[in-house]
Protein backbone atom coordinates (compact mmCIF):
# COMPACT_ATOMS: atom_id res chain seq x y z
CA UNK A 1 0.00 0.00 0.00
CA UNK A 2 1.31 3.46 -0.90
CA UNK A 3 2.43 5.75 1.89
CA UNK A 4 1.18 8.79 0.00
CA UNK A 5 -2.40 8.64 -1.24
CA UNK A 6 -2.69 9.70 -4.85
CA UNK A 7 -5.53 11.88 -5.96
CA UNK A 8 -7.87 9.80 -8.06
CA UNK A 9 -10.38 11.94 -9.82
CA UNK A 10 -13.35 10.23 -11.35
CA UNK A 11 -15.32 11.52 -14.30
CA UNK A 12 -19.02 10.87 -13.89
CA UNK A 13 -21.38 11.46 -16.71
CA UNK A 14 -24.89 12.71 -15.98
CA UNK A 15 -25.95 11.87 -19.47
CA UNK A 16 -28.49 13.48 -21.72
CA UNK A 17 -31.11 11.00 -20.58
CA UNK A 18 -31.55 11.61 -16.90
CA UNK A 19 -34.69 12.23 -14.92
CA UNK A 20 -33.26 15.21 -13.10
CA UNK A 21 -31.51 17.19 -15.77
CA UNK A 22 -34.71 18.98 -16.83
CA UNK A 23 -34.43 18.05 -20.44
CA UNK A 24 -31.66 16.74 -22.64
CA UNK A 25 -28.61 18.12 -20.90
CA UNK A 26 -25.31 16.47 -20.20
CA UNK A 27 -22.96 17.22 -17.35
CA UNK A 28 -19.55 15.66 -17.08
CA UNK A 29 -18.59 15.89 -13.42
CA UNK A 30 -15.05 15.50 -12.23
CA UNK A 31 -15.34 14.33 -8.65
CA UNK A 32 -12.90 13.61 -5.86
CA UNK A 33 -14.65 11.30 -3.47
CA UNK A 34 -17.92 13.06 -2.75
CA UNK A 35 -16.83 16.56 -3.75
CA UNK A 36 -17.26 17.97 -7.22
CA UNK A 37 -13.99 19.37 -8.51
CA UNK A 38 -15.16 20.59 -11.89
CA UNK A 39 -18.14 20.33 -14.20
CA UNK A 40 -18.33 20.55 -17.96
CA UNK A 41 -21.86 21.18 -19.18
CA UNK A 42 -22.69 19.97 -22.68
CA UNK A 43 -25.71 21.48 -24.33
CA UNK A 44 -27.01 21.41 -27.86
CA UNK A 45 -29.07 18.25 -27.80
CA UNK A 46 -32.21 20.25 -28.48
CA UNK A 47 -30.69 22.66 -31.00
CA UNK A 48 -33.28 23.00 -33.74
CA UNK A 49 -31.83 25.99 -35.54
CA UNK A 50 -34.75 28.30 -34.69
CA UNK A 51 -32.73 31.42 -35.38
CA UNK A 52 -31.64 30.24 -38.81
CA UNK A 53 -35.10 28.90 -39.62
CA UNK A 54 -36.69 32.25 -38.90
CA UNK A 55 -34.66 33.76 -41.73
CA UNK A 56 -36.68 31.73 -44.21
CA UNK A 57 -40.13 32.16 -42.67
CA UNK A 58 -42.50 35.10 -42.68
CA UNK A 59 -42.97 37.14 -39.54
CA UNK A 60 -46.27 35.51 -38.63
CA UNK A 61 -44.69 32.10 -38.99
CA UNK A 62 -41.77 33.05 -36.76
CA UNK A 63 -44.24 33.56 -33.88
CA UNK A 64 -44.86 29.83 -33.88
CA UNK A 65 -41.11 29.19 -33.64
CA UNK A 66 -40.96 31.45 -30.63
CA UNK A 67 -43.79 29.50 -29.00
CA UNK A 68 -41.55 26.51 -28.87
CA UNK A 69 -38.45 28.13 -27.44
CA UNK A 70 -39.32 28.01 -23.77
CA UNK A 71 -42.08 25.51 -24.19
CA UNK A 72 -43.57 26.13 -20.77
CA UNK A 73 -44.16 29.88 -21.04
CA UNK A 74 -45.52 30.19 -24.55
CA UNK A 75 -47.40 33.48 -24.27
CA UNK A 76 -44.39 35.28 -22.88
CA UNK A 77 -42.17 34.21 -25.77
CA UNK A 78 -44.72 35.19 -28.42
CA UNK A 79 -45.12 38.53 -26.70
CA UNK A 80 -41.42 39.38 -26.95
CA UNK A 81 -41.22 38.76 -30.68
CA UNK A 82 -44.46 40.61 -31.38
CA UNK A 83 -43.21 43.53 -29.29
CA UNK A 84 -40.01 43.66 -31.34
CA UNK A 85 -41.87 43.79 -34.66
CA UNK A 86 -44.40 46.28 -33.31
CA UNK A 87 -41.59 48.54 -32.12
CA UNK A 88 -40.01 48.41 -35.55
CA UNK A 89 -43.28 49.18 -37.31
CA UNK A 90 -44.48 51.71 -34.70
CA UNK A 91 -47.76 49.86 -34.31
CA UNK A 92 -50.26 51.13 -31.78
CA UNK A 93 -51.57 48.02 -30.08
CA UNK A 94 -55.11 48.58 -28.73
CA UNK A 95 -55.41 48.78 -24.96
CA UNK A 96 -57.75 45.85 -24.60
CA UNK A 97 -55.24 43.69 -26.43
CA UNK A 98 -52.45 44.82 -24.11
CA UNK A 99 -54.52 44.09 -21.00
CA UNK A 100 -55.45 40.65 -22.29
CA UNK A 101 -51.83 39.96 -23.22
CA UNK A 102 -50.79 40.84 -19.67
CA UNK A 103 -53.48 38.64 -18.12
CA UNK A 104 -52.54 35.67 -20.30
CA UNK A 105 -48.81 36.16 -19.72
CA UNK A 106 -49.21 36.39 -15.97
CA UNK A 107 -51.41 33.28 -15.93
CA UNK A 108 -48.71 31.55 -17.93
CA UNK A 109 -46.17 32.73 -15.35
CA UNK A 110 -48.18 31.07 -12.61
CA UNK A 111 -48.42 27.87 -14.67
CA UNK A 112 -44.68 27.90 -15.36
CA UNK A 113 -43.76 28.49 -11.73
CA UNK A 114 -46.13 25.72 -10.66
CA UNK A 115 -44.26 23.37 -12.99
CA UNK A 116 -40.93 24.52 -11.51
CA UNK A 117 -42.27 23.97 -8.01
CA UNK A 118 -43.51 20.47 -8.78
CA UNK A 119 -40.39 19.29 -10.57
CA UNK A 120 -38.06 20.85 -8.02
CA UNK A 121 -39.85 18.99 -5.26
CA UNK A 122 -39.40 15.84 -7.33
CA UNK A 123 -35.68 16.55 -7.66
CA UNK A 124 -35.39 16.81 -3.91
CA UNK A 125 -37.27 13.58 -3.43
CA UNK A 126 -40.79 14.82 -2.64
CA UNK A 127 -43.34 13.13 -4.88
CA UNK A 128 -46.51 14.74 -3.51
CA UNK A 129 -46.07 18.44 -4.44
CA UNK A 130 -46.00 17.71 -8.16
CA UNK A 131 -49.46 16.17 -7.97
CA UNK A 132 -50.89 19.27 -6.35
CA UNK A 133 -49.16 21.75 -8.59
CA UNK A 134 -50.02 19.93 -11.81
CA UNK A 135 -53.67 19.78 -10.77
CA UNK A 136 -53.63 23.57 -10.59
CA UNK A 137 -51.80 23.77 -13.90
CA UNK A 138 -54.65 21.77 -15.43
CA UNK A 139 -57.09 24.48 -14.36
CA UNK A 140 -54.99 27.15 -16.06
CA UNK A 141 -54.51 25.08 -19.19
CA UNK A 142 -58.28 24.44 -19.39
CA UNK A 143 -58.78 28.18 -19.44
CA UNK A 144 -56.14 28.54 -22.16
CA UNK A 145 -57.84 25.85 -24.18
CA UNK A 146 -61.15 27.69 -24.04
CA UNK A 147 -59.49 30.92 -25.13
CA UNK A 148 -56.97 29.85 -27.75
CA UNK A 149 -57.87 26.27 -28.61
CA UNK A 150 -54.61 24.77 -27.37
CA UNK A 151 -53.17 23.89 -23.96
CA UNK A 152 -49.64 24.84 -25.05
CA UNK A 153 -48.16 26.35 -28.23
CA UNK A 154 -51.03 28.76 -28.55
CA UNK A 155 -49.92 31.02 -31.43
CA UNK A 156 -52.45 33.50 -30.07
CA UNK A 157 -50.48 36.68 -29.53
CA UNK A 158 -50.08 38.08 -33.03
CA UNK A 159 -48.26 41.08 -34.41
CA UNK A 160 -50.57 43.99 -33.65
CA UNK A 161 -52.62 42.39 -30.90
CA UNK A 162 -54.29 39.07 -30.42
CA UNK A 163 -55.68 36.55 -32.86
CA UNK A 164 -59.28 37.10 -31.71
CA UNK A 165 -61.22 38.28 -28.70
CA UNK A 166 -61.62 36.10 -25.62
CA UNK A 167 -64.95 34.35 -24.85
CA UNK A 168 -67.62 36.43 -23.13
CA UNK A 169 -67.33 34.68 -19.77
CA UNK A 170 -63.54 35.19 -19.63
CA UNK A 171 -63.52 37.80 -16.85
CA UNK A 172 -65.81 35.69 -14.68
CA UNK A 173 -63.78 32.51 -15.25
CA UNK A 174 -60.47 34.21 -14.52
CA UNK A 175 -61.91 35.68 -11.32
CA UNK A 176 -63.02 32.25 -10.14
CA UNK A 177 -59.70 30.73 -11.16
CA UNK A 178 -57.74 33.30 -9.19
CA UNK A 179 -59.62 32.42 -6.01
CA UNK A 180 -58.81 28.75 -6.46
CA UNK A 181 -55.19 29.50 -7.38
CA UNK A 182 -54.66 31.60 -4.26
CA UNK A 183 -55.78 28.73 -2.07
CA UNK A 184 -53.69 26.28 -4.08
CA UNK A 185 -50.51 28.36 -3.87
CA UNK A 186 -50.84 28.57 -0.12
CA UNK A 187 -51.40 24.82 -0.05
CA UNK A 188 -48.28 24.19 -2.14
CA UNK A 189 -46.33 26.53 0.11
CA UNK A 190 -47.28 24.66 3.28
CA UNK A 191 -46.50 21.33 1.61
CA UNK A 192 -42.89 21.93 0.79
CA UNK A 193 -41.36 25.22 1.87
CA UNK A 194 -40.89 24.49 5.54
CA UNK A 195 -40.34 20.75 5.25
CA UNK A 196 -37.36 19.79 7.39
CA UNK A 197 -35.77 17.55 4.79
CA UNK A 198 -36.28 20.08 2.01
CA UNK A 199 -34.79 22.84 4.14
CA UNK A 200 -31.71 20.86 4.97
CA UNK A 201 -31.25 19.96 1.31
CA UNK A 202 -31.59 23.48 -0.02
CA UNK A 203 -30.60 25.96 2.70
CA UNK A 204 -27.06 27.18 2.21
CA UNK A 205 -26.58 25.10 -0.91
CA UNK A 206 -25.29 26.70 -4.10
CA UNK A 207 -24.77 30.18 -2.73
CA UNK A 208 -23.87 32.93 -5.18
CA UNK A 209 -23.45 36.57 -4.24
CA UNK A 210 -25.00 39.57 -5.99
CA UNK A 211 -21.80 40.87 -7.60
CA UNK A 212 -20.82 37.49 -8.95
CA UNK A 213 -24.32 36.77 -10.22
CA UNK A 214 -24.34 40.04 -12.17
CA UNK A 215 -20.88 39.41 -13.59
CA UNK A 216 -21.74 35.91 -14.78
CA UNK A 217 -24.90 37.23 -16.43
CA UNK A 218 -27.64 35.62 -14.37
CA UNK A 219 -31.17 36.85 -14.80
CA UNK A 220 -34.68 36.33 -13.48
CA UNK A 221 -35.55 34.62 -10.18
CA UNK A 222 -32.01 33.27 -9.57
CA UNK A 223 -30.64 36.82 -9.82
CA UNK A 224 -33.36 38.22 -7.60
CA UNK A 225 -32.70 35.46 -5.08
CA UNK A 226 -29.17 36.85 -4.71
CA UNK A 227 -30.57 40.21 -3.68
CA UNK A 228 -30.44 42.17 -6.93
CA UNK A 229 -33.66 44.03 -7.73
CA UNK A 230 -33.79 43.58 -11.50
CA UNK A 231 -37.15 42.98 -13.10
CA UNK A 232 -37.87 44.16 -16.63
CA UNK A 233 -41.47 44.89 -15.67
CA UNK A 234 -40.19 47.50 -13.23
CA UNK A 235 -36.96 48.79 -14.75
CA UNK A 236 -38.12 49.01 -18.38
CA UNK A 237 -41.92 48.68 -18.33
CA UNK A 238 -43.47 47.32 -21.48
CA UNK A 239 -47.09 46.92 -22.59
CA UNK A 240 -48.99 48.45 -19.64
CA UNK A 241 -47.02 47.29 -16.62
CA UNK A 242 -46.49 50.82 -15.36
CA UNK A 243 -50.22 50.98 -14.52
CA UNK A 244 -50.05 48.18 -12.00
CA UNK A 245 -48.92 48.20 -8.44
CA UNK A 246 -47.07 44.99 -7.64
CA UNK A 247 -44.16 43.84 -5.56
CA UNK A 248 -40.89 42.27 -6.67
CA UNK A 249 -39.81 39.43 -4.38
CA UNK A 250 -36.11 39.45 -3.64
CA UNK A 251 -34.08 36.90 -1.71
CA UNK A 252 -31.35 37.51 0.82
CA UNK A 253 -28.91 34.62 0.79
CA UNK A 254 -28.65 33.60 -2.83
CA UNK A 255 -28.92 29.91 -1.99
CA UNK A 256 -31.11 27.23 -3.53
CA UNK A 257 -33.94 27.82 -1.08
CA UNK A 258 -34.15 31.48 -2.05
CA UNK A 259 -34.16 30.54 -5.72
CA UNK A 260 -37.06 28.23 -4.92
CA UNK A 261 -39.03 30.69 -2.83
CA UNK A 262 -38.79 33.75 -5.10
CA UNK A 263 -41.01 32.12 -7.79
CA UNK A 264 -43.44 31.15 -5.05
CA UNK A 265 -43.90 34.77 -4.07
CA UNK A 266 -43.93 35.81 -7.73
CA UNK A 267 -46.99 33.65 -8.25
CA UNK A 268 -48.80 35.63 -5.55
CA UNK A 269 -47.74 38.91 -7.16
CA UNK A 270 -48.94 37.65 -10.54
CA UNK A 271 -52.40 37.15 -9.01
CA UNK A 272 -52.28 40.75 -7.75
CA UNK A 273 -51.45 41.98 -11.27
CA UNK A 274 -54.23 39.96 -12.91
CA UNK A 275 -56.80 41.26 -10.43
CA UNK A 276 -55.82 44.84 -11.20
CA UNK A 277 -55.90 44.15 -14.94
CA UNK A 278 -59.39 42.68 -14.70
CA UNK A 279 -60.60 45.85 -13.01
CA UNK A 280 -59.04 48.15 -15.57
CA UNK A 281 -59.89 46.29 -18.77
CA UNK A 282 -62.52 47.72 -21.11
CA UNK A 283 -64.08 46.57 -24.34
CA UNK A 284 -62.59 47.51 -27.66
CA UNK A 285 -60.67 46.12 -30.63
CA UNK A 286 -58.10 43.43 -30.00
CA UNK A 287 -55.84 43.88 -33.01
CA UNK A 288 -54.43 46.86 -34.84
CA UNK A 289 -55.25 47.29 -38.51
CA UNK A 290 -52.19 46.07 -40.35
CA UNK A 291 -51.55 44.94 -43.91
CA UNK A 292 -51.86 41.27 -44.58
CA UNK A 293 -48.19 40.88 -45.47
CA UNK A 294 -46.11 42.23 -42.63
CA UNK A 295 -43.15 44.11 -44.05
CA UNK A 296 -41.37 46.09 -41.34
CA UNK A 297 -39.01 48.93 -42.24
CA UNK A 298 -35.31 48.29 -42.57
CA UNK A 299 -33.37 48.41 -39.35
CA UNK A 300 -32.54 46.68 -36.11
CA UNK A 301 -34.44 46.59 -32.86
CA UNK A 302 -34.03 45.07 -29.44
CA UNK A 303 -37.05 44.15 -27.34
CA UNK A 304 -37.14 42.28 -24.07
CA UNK A 305 -39.65 41.11 -21.50
CA UNK A 306 -39.71 39.39 -18.16
CA UNK A 307 -40.25 35.70 -18.79
CA UNK A 308 -40.86 33.37 -15.86
CA UNK A 309 -37.23 32.32 -16.28
CA UNK A 310 -35.71 35.73 -16.68
CA UNK A 311 -35.12 38.43 -19.22
CA UNK A 312 -35.87 37.12 -22.71
CA UNK A 313 -34.47 39.45 -25.33
CA UNK A 314 -34.82 39.51 -29.11
CA UNK A 315 -32.47 41.36 -31.45
CA UNK A 316 -34.28 41.60 -34.76
CA UNK A 317 -32.70 42.83 -38.00
CA UNK A 318 -35.09 43.53 -40.83
CA UNK A 319 -34.17 44.24 -44.44
CA UNK A 320 -37.56 45.46 -45.55
CA UNK A 321 -38.87 42.18 -46.92
CA UNK A 322 -41.52 39.95 -45.43
CA UNK A 323 -38.95 37.65 -43.81
CA UNK A 324 -36.58 38.64 -41.02
CA UNK A 325 -32.91 39.06 -41.90
CA UNK A 326 -31.63 37.95 -38.51
CA UNK A 327 -33.39 36.96 -35.32
CA UNK A 328 -31.13 36.59 -32.32
CA UNK A 329 -32.70 35.31 -29.13
CA UNK A 330 -31.15 36.06 -25.77
CA UNK A 331 -32.45 33.17 -23.65
CA UNK A 332 -32.46 33.60 -19.88
CA UNK A 333 -31.83 29.92 -19.17
CA UNK A 334 -28.70 29.99 -21.37
CA UNK A 335 -27.27 32.83 -19.31
CA UNK A 336 -28.23 31.21 -16.02
CA UNK A 337 -26.66 27.93 -17.03
CA UNK A 338 -23.27 29.59 -17.44
CA UNK A 339 -23.23 29.99 -13.68
CA UNK A 340 -23.27 26.22 -13.21
CA UNK A 341 -19.49 25.93 -13.14
CA UNK A 342 -19.16 28.51 -10.38
CA UNK A 343 -22.06 27.10 -8.43
CA UNK A 344 -21.04 23.45 -8.50
CA UNK A 345 -17.35 23.76 -7.73
CA UNK A 346 -16.64 22.34 -4.30
CA UNK A 347 -20.13 21.10 -3.50
CA UNK A 348 -21.24 17.58 -2.81
CA UNK A 349 -22.30 15.26 -5.61
CA UNK A 350 -25.79 14.97 -4.14
CA UNK A 351 -26.21 18.73 -4.38
CA UNK A 352 -25.60 18.79 -8.12
CA UNK A 353 -29.23 17.94 -8.86
CA UNK A 354 -30.55 20.44 -6.31
CA UNK A 355 -28.44 23.29 -7.66
CA UNK A 356 -29.22 22.50 -11.28
CA UNK A 357 -32.92 22.32 -10.48
CA UNK A 358 -32.89 25.63 -8.64
CA UNK A 359 -31.66 27.44 -11.76
CA UNK A 360 -34.98 26.56 -13.43
CA UNK A 361 -33.69 25.92 -16.92
CA UNK A 362 -35.73 24.83 -19.89
CA UNK A 363 -33.52 23.25 -22.53
CA UNK A 364 -35.76 24.40 -25.36
CA UNK A 365 -34.56 27.93 -24.89
CA UNK A 366 -31.00 27.07 -23.91
CA UNK A 367 -30.43 25.32 -27.22
CA UNK A 368 -33.02 27.03 -29.40
Amino acid at each position, binding site marked *: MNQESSLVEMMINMGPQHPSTHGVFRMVLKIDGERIVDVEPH*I*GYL*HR*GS*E*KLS*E*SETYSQVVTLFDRLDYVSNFNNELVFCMAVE*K*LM*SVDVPERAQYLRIILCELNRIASHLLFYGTYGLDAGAITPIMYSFRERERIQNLFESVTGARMMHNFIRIGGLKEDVPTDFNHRVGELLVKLSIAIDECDTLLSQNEIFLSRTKGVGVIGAEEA*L*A*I*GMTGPPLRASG*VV*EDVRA*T*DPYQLYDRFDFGIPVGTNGDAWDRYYVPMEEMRQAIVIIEQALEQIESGPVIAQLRR*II*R*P*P*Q*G*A*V*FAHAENPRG*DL*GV*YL*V*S*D*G*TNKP*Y*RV*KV*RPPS*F*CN*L*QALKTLLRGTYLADAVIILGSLDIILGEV*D*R
Partner: protein
Amino acid sequence: MEKDNSGSSESESQTPKDTSPSENDGVKPQATSRRGPPVQLAPEVLGGDGEALSLLVSESLSVYGPIMGVAVDQVVVQVAVEKLTVTALKLRDDQRLRFNYFRCLATVDYHQYLEFVYLLYSTEYRYQIMLKTSVDYIEGAAPTAIVPSLSEIWPAADWHERESHDLFGVLFSGHPNMEPLLLYEGFEGFPGLKSFPFNEYEDW
Protein backbone atom coordinates in the same frame (compact mmCIF):
# COMPACT_ATOMS: atom_id res chain seq x y z
CA MET B 1 -39.10 45.98 -66.85
CA GLU B 2 -42.67 46.07 -68.07
CA LYS B 3 -44.25 42.94 -69.44
CA ASP B 4 -46.46 43.91 -72.34
CA ASN B 5 -49.29 41.42 -72.54
CA SER B 6 -51.19 43.01 -75.39
CA GLY B 7 -52.58 40.63 -77.97
CA SER B 8 -50.71 42.00 -80.93
CA SER B 9 -47.28 40.83 -79.96
CA GLU B 10 -46.30 39.83 -83.44
CA SER B 11 -46.47 43.31 -84.86
CA GLU B 12 -44.20 44.73 -82.17
CA SER B 13 -40.52 44.26 -82.50
CA GLN B 14 -39.56 42.20 -79.51
CA THR B 15 -36.11 43.22 -78.47
CA PRO B 16 -34.15 40.28 -77.06
CA LYS B 17 -32.31 40.73 -73.80
CA ASP B 18 -29.49 42.89 -75.01
CA THR B 19 -26.59 44.54 -73.32
CA SER B 20 -26.53 47.54 -75.63
CA PRO B 21 -27.02 50.85 -73.86
CA SER B 22 -30.64 51.94 -73.70
CA GLU B 23 -32.28 55.11 -72.45
CA ASN B 24 -32.72 54.10 -68.83
CA ASP B 25 -29.31 52.61 -68.44
CA GLY B 26 -28.38 54.45 -65.27
CA VAL B 27 -31.43 53.37 -63.29
CA LYS B 28 -31.47 49.71 -62.32
CA PRO B 29 -34.97 48.43 -61.64
CA GLN B 30 -35.22 47.06 -58.12
CA ALA B 31 -36.98 43.78 -57.63
CA THR B 32 -38.44 44.72 -54.26
CA SER B 33 -40.03 47.94 -55.41
CA ARG B 34 -41.70 46.38 -58.39
CA ARG B 35 -44.95 45.80 -56.62
CA GLY B 36 -44.84 46.90 -53.01
CA PRO B 37 -44.23 50.22 -51.33
CA PRO B 38 -40.63 51.47 -51.32
CA VAL B 39 -38.45 50.14 -48.50
CA GLN B 40 -38.54 52.51 -45.54
CA LEU B 41 -36.12 52.84 -42.70
CA ALA B 42 -36.99 52.10 -39.08
CA PRO B 43 -38.20 55.04 -36.98
CA GLU B 44 -35.77 56.61 -34.52
CA VAL B 45 -37.55 57.37 -31.26
CA LEU B 46 -34.67 57.99 -28.91
CA GLY B 47 -36.21 60.31 -26.35
CA GLY B 48 -34.53 62.72 -23.95
CA ASP B 49 -32.81 60.10 -21.80
CA GLY B 50 -31.46 58.31 -24.83
CA GLU B 51 -30.01 61.49 -26.30
CA ALA B 52 -28.38 62.38 -23.01
CA LEU B 53 -26.82 58.93 -22.88
CA SER B 54 -25.67 59.25 -26.47
CA LEU B 55 -23.86 62.50 -25.65
CA LEU B 56 -22.35 61.02 -22.51
CA VAL B 57 -21.04 57.95 -24.31
CA SER B 58 -19.61 59.86 -27.26
CA GLU B 59 -17.83 62.18 -24.88
CA SER B 60 -16.49 59.32 -22.77
CA LEU B 61 -15.26 57.33 -25.76
CA SER B 62 -14.14 60.28 -27.87
CA VAL B 63 -10.53 59.03 -27.89
CA TYR B 64 -11.51 55.83 -29.71
CA GLY B 65 -13.47 57.48 -32.47
CA PRO B 66 -16.96 56.06 -31.98
CA ILE B 67 -19.75 56.44 -34.49
CA MET B 68 -23.02 57.02 -32.71
CA GLY B 69 -26.31 55.74 -34.04
CA VAL B 70 -29.85 54.84 -33.07
CA ALA B 71 -31.68 51.52 -33.27
CA VAL B 72 -35.34 52.53 -32.83
CA ASP B 73 -35.03 53.39 -29.15
CA GLN B 74 -31.53 52.30 -28.20
CA VAL B 75 -28.22 54.09 -28.45
CA VAL B 76 -25.71 52.42 -30.77
CA VAL B 77 -21.95 52.89 -30.56
CA GLN B 78 -19.84 51.60 -33.41
CA VAL B 79 -16.08 51.23 -33.05
CA ALA B 80 -13.33 49.61 -35.05
CA VAL B 81 -12.44 46.08 -34.01
CA GLU B 82 -8.94 47.13 -32.90
CA LYS B 83 -10.43 49.48 -30.33
CA LEU B 84 -13.02 46.97 -29.08
CA THR B 85 -11.27 45.88 -25.87
CA VAL B 86 -10.37 49.38 -24.72
CA THR B 87 -13.86 50.64 -25.52
CA ALA B 88 -15.41 47.80 -23.55
CA LEU B 89 -13.14 48.51 -20.58
CA LYS B 90 -14.01 52.18 -20.69
CA LEU B 91 -17.74 51.41 -20.85
CA ARG B 92 -17.47 49.12 -17.87
CA ASP B 93 -15.21 51.25 -15.70
CA ASP B 94 -16.32 54.83 -16.40
CA GLN B 95 -18.08 56.00 -13.25
CA ARG B 96 -20.79 57.84 -15.16
CA LEU B 97 -21.65 54.80 -17.30
CA ARG B 98 -20.89 51.60 -15.33
CA PHE B 99 -22.04 49.03 -17.88
CA ASN B 100 -21.55 46.02 -15.67
CA TYR B 101 -24.11 43.61 -17.16
CA PHE B 102 -23.46 41.76 -20.40
CA ARG B 103 -26.75 40.85 -21.98
CA CYS B 104 -26.05 39.28 -25.34
CA LEU B 105 -23.74 38.98 -28.30
CA ALA B 106 -25.50 38.91 -31.67
CA THR B 107 -23.54 38.04 -34.80
CA VAL B 108 -25.08 39.18 -38.08
CA ASP B 109 -23.81 38.15 -41.50
CA TYR B 110 -23.98 40.90 -44.11
CA HIS B 111 -22.37 38.91 -46.90
CA GLN B 112 -19.16 40.96 -47.06
CA TYR B 113 -18.69 41.60 -43.40
CA LEU B 114 -19.75 40.20 -40.07
CA GLU B 115 -21.25 42.54 -37.54
CA PHE B 116 -20.99 41.89 -33.83
CA VAL B 117 -23.57 43.54 -31.63
CA TYR B 118 -22.87 43.55 -27.91
CA LEU B 119 -25.91 44.41 -25.84
CA LEU B 120 -24.88 45.95 -22.55
CA TYR B 121 -26.79 47.14 -19.52
CA SER B 122 -25.96 49.19 -16.48
CA THR B 123 -27.75 48.09 -13.34
CA GLU B 124 -26.80 51.25 -11.49
CA TYR B 125 -28.13 53.86 -13.92
CA ARG B 126 -30.39 51.56 -15.98
CA TYR B 127 -28.70 52.48 -19.26
CA GLN B 128 -28.97 50.17 -22.27
CA ILE B 129 -26.55 50.35 -25.17
CA MET B 130 -25.57 48.43 -28.28
CA LEU B 131 -21.84 48.22 -28.97
CA LYS B 132 -21.22 47.32 -32.60
CA THR B 133 -18.13 46.36 -34.50
CA SER B 134 -17.70 44.87 -37.95
CA VAL B 135 -15.05 42.66 -39.48
CA ASP B 136 -14.68 41.92 -43.17
CA TYR B 137 -14.55 38.30 -44.08
CA ILE B 138 -13.98 36.25 -47.19
CA GLU B 139 -16.40 33.47 -48.01
CA GLY B 140 -14.94 30.10 -47.34
CA ALA B 141 -12.29 31.28 -44.89
CA ALA B 142 -11.96 29.50 -41.57
CA PRO B 143 -11.88 31.13 -39.08
CA THR B 144 -14.26 33.61 -40.65
CA ALA B 145 -13.04 36.49 -38.52
CA ILE B 146 -10.80 37.13 -35.55
CA VAL B 147 -12.21 39.28 -32.77
CA PRO B 148 -10.73 39.94 -29.32
CA SER B 149 -12.62 38.12 -26.61
CA LEU B 150 -14.44 40.11 -23.95
CA SER B 151 -14.77 37.20 -21.53
CA GLU B 152 -12.15 38.72 -19.22
CA ILE B 153 -14.07 41.95 -18.95
CA TRP B 154 -17.49 40.34 -18.61
CA PRO B 155 -17.45 36.62 -17.67
CA ALA B 156 -21.00 36.42 -19.01
CA ALA B 157 -19.65 36.73 -22.56
CA ASP B 158 -18.13 33.25 -22.34
CA TRP B 159 -20.89 31.08 -23.76
CA HIS B 160 -22.14 33.74 -26.17
CA GLU B 161 -18.73 33.81 -27.83
CA ARG B 162 -18.58 30.04 -27.93
CA GLU B 163 -21.94 29.95 -29.66
CA SER B 164 -20.82 32.56 -32.17
CA HIS B 165 -17.71 30.52 -32.87
CA ASP B 166 -19.81 27.43 -33.35
CA LEU B 167 -22.40 28.89 -35.67
CA PHE B 168 -20.36 31.52 -37.54
CA GLY B 169 -16.77 30.32 -37.33
CA VAL B 170 -15.46 33.41 -35.57
CA LEU B 171 -12.31 33.02 -33.54
CA PHE B 172 -12.28 35.00 -30.30
CA SER B 173 -8.65 35.50 -29.34
CA GLY B 174 -8.06 35.15 -25.63
CA HIS B 175 -11.10 33.04 -24.91
CA PRO B 176 -10.33 30.30 -22.35
CA ASN B 177 -12.32 27.48 -23.92
CA MET B 178 -13.21 27.72 -27.60
CA GLU B 179 -15.12 24.44 -27.92
CA PRO B 180 -18.29 23.77 -29.91
CA LEU B 181 -21.35 24.47 -27.86
CA LEU B 182 -24.54 23.84 -29.78
CA LEU B 183 -23.61 21.69 -32.75
CA TYR B 184 -22.60 18.08 -32.49
CA GLU B 185 -19.00 16.98 -32.84
CA GLY B 186 -17.95 16.48 -36.40
CA PHE B 187 -20.37 19.03 -37.86
CA GLU B 188 -18.79 20.65 -40.89
CA GLY B 189 -19.57 24.14 -41.92
CA PHE B 190 -20.94 27.18 -40.16
CA PRO B 191 -24.73 27.19 -40.29
CA GLY B 192 -25.18 30.77 -39.16
CA LEU B 193 -23.59 32.22 -42.29
CA LYS B 194 -25.81 33.27 -45.14
CA SER B 195 -23.68 31.23 -47.53
CA PHE B 196 -24.55 27.97 -45.75
CA PRO B 197 -26.72 25.84 -48.04
CA PHE B 198 -29.61 25.79 -45.62
CA ASN B 199 -32.32 24.55 -47.94
CA GLU B 200 -30.08 22.14 -49.83
CA TYR B 201 -28.48 20.63 -46.73
CA GLU B 202 -28.91 16.90 -46.62
CA ASP B 203 -27.38 14.81 -43.91
CA TRP B 204 -29.29 11.61 -44.44
